[in-house]
Each structure stands twice: as structure tokens, then as C-alpha cells.
């Protein structure tokens, strides 16, 4: 089973990287750019099947380690469960 965790800067938190990448996108000719946010994707491969217990464990790991709730949001997708 594959779990894909997406971590992104919170909407109300300044994202200096996103701003810089946005400038580069505009200089490459992208018109009408309204926002750029840079986050990260963490891919996990885990034995077993999707279950409420697994999801609550993943949520805890996302809050404790994979994201910092002060500055980041996360969500995840489970495939092949």
C-alpha cells in the first residue's frame, strides 16, 4: 500500500520560496499567475490494509513529524489498500 503525504505552507503563512518560484514562472512567460506555494511530498510504502487505526496513526505522524502544524497543513492519499 502506498501513502502519499502532501505538506504545504499554511495559507496565512508567508512562503518566501513560493514567492521566488512565482517570480521565475512569470519571467518564463506564465501570464495571470495568482499564487505559488512550494510544499513537499512524502511517499510511504507500508504493508497492510487501509483502516481507521492506520489513518489515525498516519495523522499523528503527520502532525508530530512530517508537518509542523504551526506553519504547515497536510493531507494524504492512500492507494493500493
Amino acid at each position: 500500500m502506498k501513502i502519499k503525504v502532501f505538506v504545504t505552507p499554511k495559507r496565512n503563512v508567508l512562503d518566501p520560496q513560493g514567492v521566488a518560484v512565482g517570480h521565475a514562472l512569470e519571467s518564463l512567460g506564465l501570464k495571470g499567475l495568482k499564487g505559488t506555494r512550494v510544499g513537499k511530498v512524502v511517499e510511504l510504502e507500508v504493508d497492510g490494509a487501509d483502516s481507521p487505526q492506520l489513518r489515525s496513526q498516519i495523522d499523528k505522524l503527520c502532525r508530530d513529524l512530517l508537518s509542523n502544524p504551526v506553519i504547515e497543513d497536510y493531507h494524504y492519499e492512500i492507494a493500493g489498500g
Partner: protein
Amino acid sequence: MNIAVLQFPGSNCDQDAFHLFASGLGLPTRYLWHKETSLGSADLVVVPGGFSYGDYLRCGAIARFSPVMGAVREHAERGGLVLGICNGFQILCEAGLLPGALIRNSSLEYRCMTCDLVVEEAGPAFNTRLVGKRVRLPIGHGEGNFRIDDAGLERLESNHQVLLRYADNPNGSLSSIAGIRNEEGNVFGMMPHPDRAFERFHPSQDGLAVARAVLSLRFPDILKESA
């Protein structure tokens, strides 16, 4: 009084911090590897600067789960003194021992320079009487941009938890915050380096007053020695 300086894989200011307390203040100081689960008799734990675990994931995010951090948390909860400098500040924020978080500098540049800092009235252990109205300390960081939500910032300000503010904000920190303490007043964190400001060849010797102030809460005699 015993000082323990933590060492993580990737710490690189551990020796600077060691010498601040051992040579600068002449105090019994030792290193403590991050795999240790006990602090021994340490009165002050220093979490030094560097790039623990290569800054992977987020600065301080992985160091926070090192075995020694459990002992640091217990020490802090018992009222023991903790000082985090630079990456150490990031680790303490990640561990939840200090509020807020440190993100990429707004300039996106690594900033390595000496900063003028305004000393705040942050309680009996850190104020202008102990430290002076202004200090000059070096910084060297790419992720020193202090962030916290509005309610958290309001709490920091109303509890007088801000220790230091940049006179000229180098990294985009909210309210120019360079260092804070916890609500109880025994855990201190700052991006500037007192450990790079005590020798004659350093840009200033203001790090000594900062280190003495942090110790003064438990060891008021440390201030007499400086008089």
C-alpha cells in the same frame, strides 16, 4: 553548577557553546551525545547551532526525536534551564518547548552578519539591567524567520516572553523577534549566537552577559562574578 552541551549529528557550534561556558565563564561544562537518555547532573542544557540531521524535512524536526530530547523535556518541565542557540532554537520550537516556528528568511538568502539587537524587559532572568539596552551578536542562518499565529504573538508580547529584537530585521521575523523564552521563564531560544561573541577577536563580548543572564535565574551569584 554544571553545563551540558548537546551534540547531534550535524551540530557545528557545539564547541563554540562549550567554550562560551567553559572558557568564557569558567564553568564545569561537558558534551552530551544525543543518544544519551539522561542529563546526569546538568543544571543548564545548551542546544547548540548547526545543521542537525542535515536540516532534512525541516530544521530541527528530526533532532527533536533524538533520545536525549526526552530527558531535556523532563528537565524543562521540572524547571531546569535550557538554552537553544540558532539550530538549537529551531529544535526547541519543533519540540514544542518554545512556541512558534522558524521558516526560510524572507530574502531567501543565508544571512551571516553581526546584528544590533534590542534587549527587552523579559522578566527577572533577562532584561536590560542584566544584559544592557542593546547587544551586538553574530547571526548565521537561512531559516530564522520567526512565525507564530496572531494569538500566539499576543501571548508572547503580553507575557513579556520576547528576549531580543533585531534593530534592523535581517530575516523577516514577525515583530523583529530574535529570541524568546517560554512562559515559565526557564527555556530560552535565540537565533543570534552568544557563543560567537565572547573572545577578544569576536565582534563583541556581549555573549557573556547573555549567558550570565540565562544562568542568573538559578545561580544569582554568577552576576557577582561579572561585577
